[in-house]
């Protein structure tokens, strides 16, 4: 399976990419394209969330960092007249900077204490946004943000497709490179990691810097795509939803967050016709996965594939003898 199937995974991804590139030719509904664009943004946020998660930190301020990127970029573009092409990198860099700045003191804390202090930091971000209502629009939200590529949905589709693909490639490479392996070591046991010479604090800060950078990019592009932002997209509950996407998709797998976002954001959004009953669908998916698939959807698929491969091998051995 492993030796002969080495090209299977890349070719699946390449096929998917080609389908996605051609998709706007067949999908004419701007609403559907809009949903797919949102899916791309949330895939980016959720995958970066999981990147921090692999370093053993539960970043419950993650949606807040998305908010930092969104608000910094929106304010720079709207009030200071910066072009979105410059304000988006600015927003992302500010989000990363804040991530690094809080990374230093927060690296003192581990496990549930880290989770809780980052949760409170996320709440702090939201109340800070509300406090500076003059620039941020406060609880009512910030409107009339300059759009990045006009008001048609299709150019954004290609923009987000490119952005998400590049970001996913970077994060995927990172996971199997030195920093990614160090993160996993720290997550398993920070004592053992330190004893083999891994600088725990440093790699944890690197993890949150990278995660926050991508969250900032996603937030900033979201602001200039949606042109309206409000605090509820960046609240504590929004972060919890990111965690749910990851767990439902499967924590142990890079594709986990992608599957999770698709199942819990795209599918309920497509079923919008059911109106207020839609959360029941999400709840059903969540409970089904949690009870029946301990390792998430991708975990189940993975064990299914290896089970089939085993079966196939046995059959060939039987035929040969």
């Amino acid at each position, binding site marked *: 399976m492993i030796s002969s199937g080495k090209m299977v995974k890349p070719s699946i991804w390449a096929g998917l990419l080609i389908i996605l590139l051609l998709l706007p030719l067949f999908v004419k509904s701007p609403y559907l394209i809009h949903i797919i664009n949102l899916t791309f943004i949330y895939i980016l946020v959720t995958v970066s969330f999981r990147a921090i998660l692999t370093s053993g930190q539960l970043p419950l301020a993650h949606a807040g960092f998305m908010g930092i990127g969104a608000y910094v970029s929106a304010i720079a573009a709207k009030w200071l007249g910066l072009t979105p092409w410059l304000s988006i990198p600015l927003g992302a860099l500010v989000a990363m900077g804040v991530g690094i700045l809080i990374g230093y003191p927060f690296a003192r804390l581990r496990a549930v204490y880290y989770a809780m202090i980052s949760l409170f930091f996320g709440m702090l971000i939201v109340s800070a946004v509300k406090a500076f209502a003059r620039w941020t629009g406060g609880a009512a939200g910030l409107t009339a943000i300059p759009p990045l590529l006009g008001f048609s949905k299709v150019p954004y589709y290609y923009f987000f497709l490119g952005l998400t693909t590049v970001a996913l490639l970077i994060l995927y490479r990172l996971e199997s490179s030195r920093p990614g392996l160090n993160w996993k070591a720290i997550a398993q046991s920070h004592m053992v990691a330190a004893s083999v010479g891994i600088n725990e604090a440093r790699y944890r800060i690197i993890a949150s810097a990278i995660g926050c950078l991508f969250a900032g990019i996603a937030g900033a592009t979201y602001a200039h795509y949606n042109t309206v932002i409000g605090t509820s997209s960046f609240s504590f509950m929004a972060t919890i939803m990111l965690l749910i996407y990851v767990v439902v998709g499967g924590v142990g797998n890079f594709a986990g967050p992608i599957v999770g976002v698709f199942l819990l954001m795209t599918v309920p959004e497509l079923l919008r016709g059911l109106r*207020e009953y839609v959360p029941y669908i999400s709840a059903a998916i969540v409970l089904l996965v949690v009870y029946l698939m301990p390792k998430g959807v991708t975990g189940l698929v993975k064990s299914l594939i290896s089970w089939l491969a085993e079966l196939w091998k046995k059959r060939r051995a039987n035929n040969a003898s």
Partner: protein
Amino acid sequence: MELAVGIFANVLILSSMYILVALGFALLFSIAGILHVSHGAIYTVSGYICWQLAQTVGINQWLALLLTVLIVGSFGLFLERFCFRPFTGDFDRSLVVGIGIILILQTTIVVTVGQESRSMSAFVAGILHSGPISVSLERLVTFAIGAAMLGILVWFINNTKPGLQMRAMSQDLQGAIMQGININRTSAIAVVIACASAAVAGCLMGAYINLSPFMGDVVLGKALILVILGGIGSMSGIFYAGLILGALDATLPVFFSGSVAEVIAMGAIIIVLLFRPTGFLGRAIA
């Protein structure tokens, strides 16, 4: 002077509300190690059940409160058996189950009653005048019930057999099992108590502020702050944390506008936790 007395009264009342709301949540977090995210939703649903019983069925509101506590308490039994027990020690998955419960409860409220907020009649009407200050009786009743419930719970945990078993469980689960403690029964008791106290809080607060399907989200945030600030594993820590948070939330808005006060309060909490991650009275857990 008048301002000081007014602030003091506000501090006590806010604190007692926070404590009332956070009690059950703290019990589950400390004793059973369950991050009970659906606590806020259960609190909300209790308010609605009580309102429905009093308004639609037309029974006395205090009786409705009692019935609500019974209904929600037995829902706690179901919750423990089917939602918490299968995921013991699995933080992520128990959190996800909690979110599933929140989604179901909130959606049920939206579908049956609607999104707009509802007002429930007060449990006790009237205002108490005493010199320069006047406090509504309802606030006083909330304060008294909150204080009494905290007292009873602390007494329960320190003096009764199930309470001591809970403490043993929170200290060393393996050791507790070896001493013959039925951990399933003990955590069922904890969950029922948590749900019942959420029900009391939901009914009282529902009458105090208006009922709305998403009012539990704020409560969840406050409860989390209280538990962490008080220290995981310490019930009396809740009391001090409640007082401090109540004091911050009652005094800061006098000097700053609402959101700025919130920023300062959150900043103060973060700084405290940086220097004392285990909270005021907590002990380190792995």
